[in-house]
């Protein structure tokens, strides 16, 4: 019984105390202003290309606080969470004043480290009511991350110590395995020896290699996503354009020709700029991803149009005539006779076009689409090493090399099939004869001029055109003979140049 009374009394007492505390707290609120209130406390993001603060990685803490009007401060101490390392090097205190706090006064202070605390002692007591900024460099939070609670005290001119008002916690994310591996590598002797070579350090720094990989891979998926959506969209559009260009109606032909010539006659970079900065001005708000897809698809469709047209026109006229004489109409001829034959012929070139389009996604970096180059760029900017670009290059090669190999196989297959595997010389694609169709030749000339820096594209198209014309040649024996002769000629001349090189 007695116990119960005492416990009831305790509860009552606790209640009273709580009320009192609350009351004091309430009344003390205005008085609380007589303190150094934290305005903000942040850490500089150190994760490449994001706003995150990582543990075990160098960062800088910026704490800002407003002193009460009658308080003249002589020193500030910030206590960092346990396991945090930092230096007093570069640490500084700045007093901000004036309208919008845009006046800066450097406070001369000495800094010392006491356990987990950094102590700043001002040479002279600062004017009362100052707004202070305290920056601590080379801070490394614990690797485990979490909400980092800082505490602080300050010293008044009269020697009193007081607590700094509550400091908002800094969210720190734990280091990922790549970071850990990187710091582990950084300590290895062979890595240090490796990095002491300037060239290797700039281009193939192992520590940056491992950290940039997981960052750049995000861009890889973005780039792949863009091209995997854009390319299939471009195919039907390109086919329609190709049919329009071959149409008997002058209007359709005119529209398609104009479109193809304009798109192929201007740099993709410019098209991207116009779409990203121009369309929104016209009131069309499109998010970056779909807009990027649309621009690339529209660009690619113009090139695909020419590929399809070359493919369709490479089908011998006899095929048209034969199907018409079987009673098929124009659409049926196209759909059931010509296009199925075309598909096989254009697949290698289309694959090349895919490769080019995939590489062209890098141009979207200029307008802020977070793809491979963009991510690599942000790390290069932060580290000053070119290594992330090398990583980026690998992400392009991962796609382009196998595809290029496939193109090679397809072309071989095509050449063998169409040529009945008879002409070994045909495999030397670079020495294959030029197309005999003058229109096709003209197109190729346009293609080679239309995109500056894209010689490859023109070259690859030329190769396809050559394959196509090679196919033609079988039908027309005469051509084949001519080609064989010219190929032999070219072979001879290239041999000559090779021997010239060797010399």
């Amino acid at each position, binding site marked *: 019984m007695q116990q119960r009374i005492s416990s009831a009394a305790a509860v009552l007492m606790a209640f009273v105390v709580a009320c009192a505390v609350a009351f004091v707290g309430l009344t003390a609120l205005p008085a609380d202003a007589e303190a150094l209130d934290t305005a903000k406390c942040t850490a500089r993001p150190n994760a490449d290309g994001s706003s995150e603060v990582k543990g075990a990685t160098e960062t800088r803490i910026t704490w800002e606080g407003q002193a009460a009007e009658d308080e003249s401060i002589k020193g500030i101490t910030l206590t960092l969470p346990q396991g945090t390392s930092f230096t007093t090097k570069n640490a500084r205190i*700045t007093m901000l004043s004036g309208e919008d706090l845009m006046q800066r006064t450097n406070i001369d202070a000495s800094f010392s480290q006491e356990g987990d605390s950094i102590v700043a002692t001002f040479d002279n007591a600062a004017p009362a009511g100052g707004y202070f900024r305290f920056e601590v460099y080379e801070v490394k939070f614990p690797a485990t991350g979490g909400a980092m609670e800082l505490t602080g005290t300050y010293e008044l001119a009269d020697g009193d110590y007081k607590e700094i008002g509550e400091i908002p916690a800094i969210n720190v994310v734990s280091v990922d395995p790549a970071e850990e591996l990187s710091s582990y590598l950084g300590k290895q002797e062979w890595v240090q020896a490796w990095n002491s070579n300037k060239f290797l350090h700039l281009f193939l720094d192992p520590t940056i290699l491992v950290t940039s990989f997981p960052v750049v891979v995000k861009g890889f998926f973005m780039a792949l996503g863009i091209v995997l959506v854009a390319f299939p969209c471009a195919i039907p559009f390109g086919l329609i354009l190709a049919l329009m260009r071959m149409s008997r109606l002058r209007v359709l032909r005119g529209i398609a020709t104009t479109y193809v010539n304009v798109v192929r006659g201007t740099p993709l970079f410019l098209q991207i700029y116009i779409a990203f900065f121009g369309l929104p001005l016209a009131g069309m708000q499109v998010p970056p991803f779909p807009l990027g897809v649309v621009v690339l698809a529209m660009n690619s469709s113009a090139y695909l149009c020419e590929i399809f047209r070359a493919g369709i026109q490479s089908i011998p006229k006899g095929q048209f005539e034969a199907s018409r004489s079987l009673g098929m109409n124009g659409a049926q001829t196209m759909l059931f006779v010509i296009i199925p034959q075309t598909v096989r012929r254009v697949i290698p070139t289309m694959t090349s076009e895919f490769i080019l389009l995939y590489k062209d996604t890098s141009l979207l970096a*200029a307008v802020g689409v977070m793809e491979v180059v963009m991510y690599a760029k942000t790390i290069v900017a932060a580290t000053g090493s070119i290594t992330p670009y090398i990583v980026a290059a690998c992400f392009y090669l991962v796609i382009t090399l196998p595809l290029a190999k496939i193109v090679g196989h397809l072309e071989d297959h095509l050449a063998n099939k169409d040529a009945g595997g008879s002409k070994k010389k045909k495999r030397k694609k670079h020495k294959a004869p030029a197309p005999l169709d003058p229109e096709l030749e003209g197109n190729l000339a346009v293609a080679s001029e239309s995109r500056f820096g894209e010689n490859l594209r023109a070259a690859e198209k030329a190769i396809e055109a050559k394959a196509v014309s090679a196919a033609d040649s079988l039908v027309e024996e005469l051509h084949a003979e001519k080609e064989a002769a010219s190929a032999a000629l070219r072979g001879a001349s290239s041999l000559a140049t090779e021997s010239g090189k*060797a010399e």
Partner: protein
Amino acid sequence: MNIKKFGVVVLLGALVASFGLFGCSSNNASSDSSDDYTLLNDGVLVVGLSPDYPPFENLEGDELVGFEVELGQAIAEELGLQYENKNLQFDAIIPAVTAGGQVDIGMSGFTVTPERAEQIDFTDTFYIDDQAVAVMKDEGITKDNAADALNQEGVIIAVQSGTTGEVYAQENYPNAVIQPYGNSTDCFAAMQSGQANAVCTNKAVVEKMIKDAYQNAEIVATSATGEEYAIVVSKDNPKLTEAINEALKKLQENGTIDELTAKWF
């Protein structure tokens, strides 16, 4: 076929060898004249800059103008060198200075930060700037609500890649999307076209941009970050840093820097 492959191998070998030789020769050059600074070309100071940063450096027509351009010319004159500019993307300048071979120095609104100082040497500082955030006037963000309104999910802040403005925005507006662009002109173009809600970069640049081209934008937040501008020099070229520091000192003493500051700001 085999002969051809062999030829390719030989060619590659030759290429690698020439690279190696080239590397050696450039190293030799720098060690030969250890008592003096080295330059890419004798008598020419090649300055790497990103000419999209008015009033520090920008193109007017095809003429390069700006505070740092004139200061660079003054320094070159002081050193008895010819000033030559090389246009690069901002985030490519420090790598270019570190790697060497492209530029002698970088002078493109570089703020002194300890992080950057690990990669390159800074000269003495010659200008102090702050950060500012600008929005379009019809955005509905004002000076009073900027701190909160900008730190929202869905807000896109355009920054120039590799700048202190980028880091400032990431640190102070962690909830917003920080969208990096190649240069500050693109940042403003992105904001005007609605691709971004705000631009965060150095105050002098924001002010100049608003004054000259984007009258329908306004500054809603500023922070006296006190960023000290300096010239970026390779760590392998400490003598050049010294020489530039001396030139800067002279220009400070004879009032050239004050004159230029008055002219451009």
